[in-house]
């Protein structure tokens, strides 16, 4: 991979490049006291000089001593919010005077570019690709958004207390899935080391004021981040959870779990949806899908009752799906170790600890 040095004031040139041709740029920005992913236009929109303190059940923002643009840990949003949106219209049905029905597509998504995604986010996109772009089952809304995206990743140089990507084999080193990867170097004269990961990435920096550089900053940053990580998913979790399906240990976590579904909403790989049917004032019927969560009791409704009535059964679905049956379905774990479900759990439930306790691993 070729490496270049980019001066911080030239970063805006890259952001402009990313938005050429009407591409909508999604990146980190501050909103309601959290760093979310949303539309940005220039470096002025990035959360400058901020860092995060993250723990089970919470994330706080603090000022940094420097002007870092990417000096914080993953926030609640991942690319999922844009590639697999929380709500999307699948089609509209229209009835003409003769009673004929017509089904019409209404989805006209923009082209997206992302900046600021981390290694875990890229691994999560890979997992959602496996879900939505299966041979014979292509989800058109995902495919349309995913087809021509540009991704500028950021190499983590620190890990949150909730991160465990190293034990999932998904990070912290960004080694696939990005067109460009930025490593923000703050020692000495601040600069970015830019790694090129694809032909599209090469095209993005063509003509920008970058200089070839020999730098090991990306590897050093990744090693620093990895060294912070204490949490480790047990290696035998796939089998151990399946062997524990009827363990009373699920009741213990069910007593703490609020079944709010926050974990599945912030999880960058969870893909479940439901559909909503409404009618417009003009008399068209809208068939829309929106994110759903297996923590909702109605998720398994059969006439008059739910299959997973208790919270223990729903927590079991979440954990066994993420860590066990996902392998059978998609040949990969459903967890990338981003830690979001731990950070944004109002009860601070830690899936790694639960997996260890319930699966009986050491």
């Amino acid at each position, binding site marked *: 991979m070729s490496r270049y040095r980019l001066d911080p004031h030239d970063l805006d040139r890259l952001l402009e490049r990313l938005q050429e041709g009407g591409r909508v740029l999604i990146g980190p920005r501050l909103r309601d006291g959290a760093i979310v992913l949303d539309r940005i236009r220039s470096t002025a929109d990035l959360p400058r000089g901020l860092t995060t303190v993250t723990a089970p059940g919470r994330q706080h923002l603090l000022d940094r001593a420097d002007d870092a643009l990417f000096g914080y840990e993953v926030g609640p949003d991942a690319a999922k919010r844009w590639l697999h949106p929380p709500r999307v219209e699948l*089609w509209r049905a229209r*009835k003409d005077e003769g009673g004929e029905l017509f089904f019409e597509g209404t989805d006209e998504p923009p082209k997206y570019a992302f900046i600021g995604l981390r290694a875990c986010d890229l691994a999560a996109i890979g997992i959602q690709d496996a879900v*939505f772009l299966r041979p014979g*089952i292509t989800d058109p809304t995902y495919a349309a958004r995913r087809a021509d995206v540009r991704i500028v990743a950021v190499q983590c140089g620190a890990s949150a207390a909730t991160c465990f990507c190293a034990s999932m084999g998904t990070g912290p080193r960004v080694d696939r899935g990005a067109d460009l990867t930025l490593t923000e170097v703050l020692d000495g004269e601040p600069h970015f080391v830019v790694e090129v990961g694809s032909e599209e990435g090469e095209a993005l920096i063509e003509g920008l004021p970058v200089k070839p550089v020999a730098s090991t900053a990306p590897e050093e940053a990744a090693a620093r981040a990895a060294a912070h990580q204490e949490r480790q998913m047990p290696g035998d979790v796939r089998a151990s959870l399946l062997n524990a399906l009827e363990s009373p240990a699920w009741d213990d976590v069910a007593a703490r779990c609020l079944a709010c579904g926050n974990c599945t909403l912030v999880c960058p790989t969870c893909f479940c949806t439901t559909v909503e*049917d409404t009618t417009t004032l003009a008399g068209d019927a809208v068939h829309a899908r929106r994110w759903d969560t297996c923590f909702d009791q109605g998720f398994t409704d059969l006439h008059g009752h739910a299959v997973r009535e208790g919270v223990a059964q729903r927590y079991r679905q979440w954990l*066994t799906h993420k860590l066990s049956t996902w392998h059978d379905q998609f040949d990969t774990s459903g967890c990338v170790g981003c830690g979001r479900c731990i950070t944004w759990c109002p009860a601070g439930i830690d899936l790694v600890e639960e997996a260890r306790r319930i699966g009986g691993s050491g």
Partner: protein
Amino acid sequence: MTAAALDLWRPVPMPVVSKVQETADTVTIELDARDSPVRFAPGQFTMLYAFGHGEVPISISGDPAHPERLVHTIRAVGRVTNPLVAVEPGQVLGVRGPFGTGWPVHDAEDGEVVVVAGGIGLAPVRPVFHALAAHRERYERVWVLVGARTPADLLYREELERFAGAHGFDLRLTVDHADDTWDGPVGVVTRLLEAADFDPSRATLMTCGPEIMMRFVVREALRQGVPAEKIWLSMERNMKCAIGLCGHCQWGADFLCRTGPVMRWDHAMHRFDVGGL
């Protein structure tokens, strides 16, 4: 993005051509599928869309030899099935499918066939009767064991009796609660299975109905010596997409909309009794 990809979510309009009231809350409707014939395996289902109300999974209950006539038997139980049951000939529904796995009508050849169904569970096995009748010579004895709550809830009764007469099916009916029109057996459908005199080593058993019913049916079949890999059942779960994308129908690693609803007992048995999976 290809047009084929869009088709997975988007229904095809089909007009209702006829409607038969089967029981107080259940009707059979036939849709005109000549413009887009639905070639299906017995046991497969479609997603039926009622304008403005939504889509639900409904088994195809017609004759697989007639893909141009799409037949469904629907029981009104709620938000979407109520308007579906209320449709009248001439009205148009949306259809996606067929989806899912089918009954082992080919694997069952050269042996006895035992079909055990309860309530609306008869709808997904009705195409099996057509398939067996079309090649009656390929099967040995065919047992059709049917249970319903009351005589008034028995689906397809006349048709079943006609079929049984014409094609030599051993038809046995039972109800949970008799009334004065009923002089047949009273009790659960498992009793019919206990009394049926088939050779368990030569039989393929297909069962569809409430899970609790299927549990007892499978238990009895195993007790009689039907091998696990000759027992098939149909699993019902909430389904929002039928194409493996919404996640609702998961049962362990299975997306029942794709690797079900029909599956072999040896694939189901390790978790069938795990409650709330």
